[in-house]
């Protein structure tokens, strides 16, 4: 007995068999089972779920829409309204740890003798050690100096990564961008609570700068793959 072909059985998933096919199916358990499997396969395809786009997808799209003049930036995006609670907690912990790290940098047991620092502006020489920080303006100046040092170190770190080709190790630009978005959102929320806090301001400035750099890098990548439209 010659079996029905797989293509014929595929047709019979949605169409009625002719007389000969009906007779064969009535007699052949193997073809009936194959038709049943094909029917199940087709039904399963119709039940496939939606797929969430990768993290950072909206950020890239938002930048493209803005660059093409199709959208104004979504200001509310920086709010915490839609940030998952666990992410808020994680960001808060990160902020706390960052602040603690900065505090330890300035702690008396670690004499701080940086280069010229600035109590009121970037051009005024100001030298101090942590033990000499006893007034609020001095403490603010120390924080600003620490921020500057952090930014300098960050720039050097990025340059080293670029020259050594290690910038992408273990992290995609999209996932990094998504993580930075959360950090920026956390910083914004924290700033609402303490608008003048220098640590939070410094943290947010760093996160914003990094996000901008990562966005530009990501857009460069996107641009290089855009030749098809």
């Amino acid at each position, binding site marked *: 007995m010659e079996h029905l*072909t*797989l*293509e*014929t*059985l*595929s*047709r019979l*998933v949605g169409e009625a068999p002719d007389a000969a096919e009906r007779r064969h199916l009535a007699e052949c358990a*193997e073809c*009936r*089972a*194959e038709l*049943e*499997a*094909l*029917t*199940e*396969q*087709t039904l*399963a*395809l*119709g039940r*496939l*779920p*939606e*797929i*969430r*786009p*990768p993290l950072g*997808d*909206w950020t*890239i*799209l*938002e930048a*493209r*829409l*803005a660059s*093409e*003049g*199709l*959208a*104004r*930036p*979504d*200001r*509310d*995006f920086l*709010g915490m*309204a*839609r940030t998952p609670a666990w992410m808020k907690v994680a960001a808060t912990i990160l902020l706390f740890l960052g602040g603690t790290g900065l505090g330890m940098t300035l702690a008396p047991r670690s004499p701080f003798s940086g280069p010229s620092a600035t109590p009121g502006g970037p051009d005024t020489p100001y030298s101090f050690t942590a033990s000499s920080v006893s007034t609020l303006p001095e403490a603010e100046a120390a924080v600003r100096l620490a921020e500057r040092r952090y930014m300098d170190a960050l720039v050097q770190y990025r340059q080293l990564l670029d020259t050594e080709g290690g910038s992408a190790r273990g992290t995609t630009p999209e996932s990094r961008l998504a993580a930075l978005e959360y950090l920026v959102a956390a910083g914004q929320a924290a700033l609402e609570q303490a608008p003048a806090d220098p640590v939070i301001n410094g943290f947010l400035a760093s996160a914003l700068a990094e996000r901008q750099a990562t966005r530009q890098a990501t857009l460069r990548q*996107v641009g290089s*793959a*855009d030749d*098809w*439209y």
Partner: protein
Amino acid sequence: MPSQRVTSRPGRSALTEAQLIQRACGGDGSAIRSLYERYAPRVYAVVRRIAGDDDLAQDYAQEAWIRAIRALPTFRGDARFSTWLHRIAVNAALQALRRSDTRRKREAPMPETLPVAPRIGDSLLEQRLEAAMDALPPGMREVLILHDVEGYTHEEIGDALGVASGTSKSQLFKARARMRTLLQGIDGTDTGQGAEAWSI
């Protein structure tokens, strides 16, 4: 135009879809984001399946959204917004696929076995189906996705692909048969087990 109520932001007043579309037309980033959040999984799913590749899928989805936002002023509400957007996504993905070299690459001989890269949250059956679809030649994959996954008619597929509806039918039957063979290859033990093989 449909007026399903959707909440654009927690704590903000709810806007109808029509209002969101109207604001999005004016370049309101918040409204565009609300539409994106609502429909991105559906758009991404169809372009991902047509692309057959994660990297291409993101590019195709982005292109679909750019086209949709650009064309938003022409949306008159004759069809549901989701249907209108879906068509744009399908067309964007199909056109992008035709312009890319991947079509030629994908028409290389099919592998004997298929690697199934698991994705968190996918059931084993879904993983097998997605892997088998990715391995289909583009012509078959497009017809199978549009018909069996997305529910298009052969006439609609013919319009989208620029082929006769009869061609769409024959491609579909071939695609289903090839899927069956590929899935048996993935299972390794499926041959002859019929529908039992589908019980996960």
